[in-house]
């Protein structure tokens, strides 16, 4: 760690991991409810478990992005963070707001939570992923503004690199597009149209800039490849991300009351959305192959390569599978969507946060550059267990989705939703089993922070080729 103030990243990463655990536990609850319909009913109905599952995911990724930023910006800007105290303060505000919101979901009925937080005065609740009470949303905006101010001031007073600039543009876009969470018109079509300005323009837009910047930072560090080369790649990747992703929003405007021309715009541009992800994979492997040094943190390199591959598969390939409007006509709102959502979020955003944690945490905990071999081996186990089980979760949900679409929408005698659900329950059981393996991987991940922490750091063997 080159700058003292980088240490503020540590609590952000720890909070991220704790919320990650909560996310997975509630995922397992939901997965079981898919096959044992009355599990925990009526105490934790499915929608409540789902809110906790998706909201903790979003929040822990935000904790991860903020931690990543606090870690890498001082190093890129070659100066201490503008106001470390502000970063600490915002951490606690964000954590308390998250805890209170999740407690609200679990302890009282959602309608009561809406009443308690005065939702009727300024209704923003009850939309997918944006279920947070209005007051929580305002809190998110305050935290985001303070965060952007702090990071912006740091970049301004220090060296301006492409990595920190791209990261900053991504974060600025994140904050800006979140403001559409406050626009909830009575008109359902307008509501849905601008809801996507938060959801799509986040995950298939500005978040890709954040992903690219963090990946570029880690690759510069672990490969020692010339910054000029990496920055050129970064520009091209994020250029393609926005060129395809902005109009690609149209793939959500096929069937929600918007004009039919979106079927052309959305299909053509979103069909090109895999391109930046493919480039990212080529980029990551290229840089690692051309590395000028072997970094002793081999597991961080593994995460970086894994991110590139899994983001391409989950966001790119599984996205393409159902993005063309004639296909989407049948698959829209089915388990195919769920399959894509799981692998894309894991591959692109979960893995990039785990990459930067893997790279930075050893230094934040007092190592010079890497954990012990024993700890790294444990973390590699967690990498493979979580990644392979996520592949299987995706495959099982895809199987469920294909059957669902056929039985409910394509066959000569279309059957009702719940009748179809009964017939595909085998796939849901298999998905749940894969989810349990994911949890085992997560336990290994947590364990990797404790196993071998008293052993000496890993070093590079002179002849060995790492990664």
């Amino acid at each position, binding site marked *: 760690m080159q700058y003292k103030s980088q240490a503020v990243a540590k609590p952000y990463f720890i909070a991220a991991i704790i919320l990650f655990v909560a996310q997975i536990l509630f995922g397992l609850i939901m997965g079981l409810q898919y096959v*044992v*319909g*009355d599990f925990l*009913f*009526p105490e934790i*109905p*499915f*929608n*409540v478990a*789902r*809110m906790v599952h998706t909201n903790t995911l979003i929040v822990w990724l935000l904790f991860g992005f903020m931690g990543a930023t606090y870690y890498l910006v001082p190093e890129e800007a070659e100066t201490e963070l503008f106001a470390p105290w502000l970063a600490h303060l915002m951490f606690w505000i964000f954590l308390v707001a998250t805890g209170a919101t999740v407690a609200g979901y679990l302890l009282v009925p*959602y*309608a009561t939570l*809406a009443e308690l937080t005065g939702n*009727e005065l300024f*209704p923003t*609740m*009850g*939309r*997918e992923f944006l*279920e947070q009470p209005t007051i929580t949303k305002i809190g998110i905006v305050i935290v985001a503004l303070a965060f952007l101010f702090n990071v912006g001031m740091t970049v301004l007073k220090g060296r301006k690199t*492409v990595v920190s600039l791209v990261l900053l543009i991504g974060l600025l876009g994140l904050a800006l597009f979140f403001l559409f969470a406050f626009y*909830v018109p*009575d*008109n*359902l*079509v*307008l509501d*849905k*149209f601008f809801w996507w300005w938060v959801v799509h323009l986040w995950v298939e837009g500005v978040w890709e800039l954040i992903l690219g910047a963090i990946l570029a930072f880690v690759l510069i560090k672990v490969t020692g490849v010339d910054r000029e080369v990496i*920055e*050129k*790649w970064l*520009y*091209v990747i994020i*250029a393609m991300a*926005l*060129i395809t992703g*902005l*109009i690609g*929003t*149209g793939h959500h*405007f096929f*069937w*929600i*009351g*918007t*004009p*039919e021309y979106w079927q052309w715009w959305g299909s053509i541009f979103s069909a090109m959305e895999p391109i930046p992800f493919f480039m990212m994979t080529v980029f990551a492997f290229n840089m690692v192959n051309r590395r000028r040094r072997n970094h002793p943190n081999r597991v961080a390199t593994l995460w970086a390569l894994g991110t590139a591959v899994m983001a391409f598969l989950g966001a790119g390939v599984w996205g393409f599978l159902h993005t063309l409007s004639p296909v989407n*006509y*049948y698959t*829209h*709102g089915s388990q195919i*969507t769920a399959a894509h959502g799981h692998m894309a979020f894991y591959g692109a955003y979960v893995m990039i946060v785990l990459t930067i944690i893997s790279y930075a945490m050893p230094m934040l905990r007092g190592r010079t550059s890497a954990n012990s071999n024993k700890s790294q081996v444990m973390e590699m186990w967690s990498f493979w267990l979580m990644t392979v089980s996520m592949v299987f979760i995706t495959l099982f949900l895809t199987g469920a989705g294909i059957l669902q679409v056929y039985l409910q*929408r394509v066959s000569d005698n*279309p*059957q009702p*939703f*719940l009748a179809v*659900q009964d017939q595909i329950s085998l796939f849901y059981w298999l998905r749940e089993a894969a989810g349990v393996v994911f949890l085992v991987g997560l336990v290994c991940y947590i364990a990797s922070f404790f196993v071998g922490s008293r052993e000496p750091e890993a070093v590079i063997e002179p002849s060995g080729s790492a990664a």
Partner: protein
Amino acid sequence: MAQVFTKSMARNIFYGGSAFFLLLFLVLTFDTTKALPDRDNRGAITPEVARGKLVWEQNDCVGCHTLLGEGAYFAPELGNVYQRFGNSKDAIMGFIKSRPKEGIPGRRSMPQFNFSDEELSAIAEFLIYSSKINTAGWPPNIQG
């Protein structure tokens, strides 16, 4: 990437490309808002429908159901539930009202929300309004 392709060229593609396509996106958005009045059934948005949308939101219905294909995939699509229930508002209200408080053993069941008659009517009116939005022929059949 060969040397002829420089970093500043890459940077220009990023800024130029993003700006151009953002602008195009805004133009298409503008055109969409112009075209919507003919498609989105806005004439039917009465105060009761607006109230129904709020009830829909404040009970997180989208946490289990899809509406025009968006939401959760745990319970049936509701964009065409009005047609599926034989164009009957009473059938919608009756279904919501009759959900068992303790659920159904071993099976998925909608919670009992204890709605007032006004709330029930509002949410049904909201679903009726939604069912008449021009969705380009989606869903493929009555099962949603």
